[in-house]
C-alpha cells in the first residue's frame, strides 16, 4: 500500500477521536450497514466524523488493507480499529461501546 494513502488514512484517524469510514454520509447513508452504525453513534450522542468511501475509490480500497478488514463500514475510536456493523452493534448492546467512548 502506498505511503501517502496510508498517511492520509492515518491522518483521518489521528485527527478524529471517533472516525467512521462509511458509504454515504451521516445525513444520507448509502448502505444499511453504514446507516446502522450512524444510528448507533447518534443514539450514543458522541461527536464523530465520517468519510464517504464512495467518493474516493483509493480510500475505499485502501481502508480495507489498512485495517485488515474486507468490508465497509469501519469504525475507529481513539486511533483503535473497533470493527464493522456487527461488532459495533454487539458492543452497543453490551454497553462496551459507551465504555470505549468514555
Amino acid at each position: 500500500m502506498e505511503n501517502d494513502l496510508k498517511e492520509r488514512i492515518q491522518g483521518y484517524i489521528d485527527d478524529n477521536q471517533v472516525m467512521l469510514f462509511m458509504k454515504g454520509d451521516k445525513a444520507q447513508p448509502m448502505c444499511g450497514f453504514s446507516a446502522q452504525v450512524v444510528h448507533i453513534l447518534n443514539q450514543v450522542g458522541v461527536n464523530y466524523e465520517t468519510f464517504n468511501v464512495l467518493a474516493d475509490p483509493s480510500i475505499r480500497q485502501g481502508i480495507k488493507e489498512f485495517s485488515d478488514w474486507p468490508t465497509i463500514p469501519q469504525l475507529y475510536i481513539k486511533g483503535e480499529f473497533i470493527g464493522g456493523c456487527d461488532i459495533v452493534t454487539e458492543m452497543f448492546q453490551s454497553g462496551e461501546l459507551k465504555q470505549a467512548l468514555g
Partner: protein
Amino acid sequence: MIDLITNNIKEAIPDSNVVVLNPMNDGVHFQAHVAAESFRGLPLVKQHRLVMNSLKEEFKELVHALALKTYLPEAWEEQKTKLNL
C-alpha cells in the same frame, strides 16, 4: 454460495462449526454463525477478522454482506437450540 462461504471459513478456522444462512434469499446478504475453540482468548474484533478475511475475494463482488456472530464451543450448543439450527 452458502457452500463456498462455509468452506472458506472452515479452511481458515479448521476447528470451527459453521452455519451460513441467506435470510433474505437474495444470494448476496448472508448470515454466519461460527463457533470455534480457537476463538478462546481472542478479542471479538480478532474473531471476526479471522472469518471476514477468509472471504476477502468474495466480498469484492459476490458477497455484499455477512452478518456475523462468533461463539465459543460451550455457547454454541445453547445457541443452536435458540436459533433452531
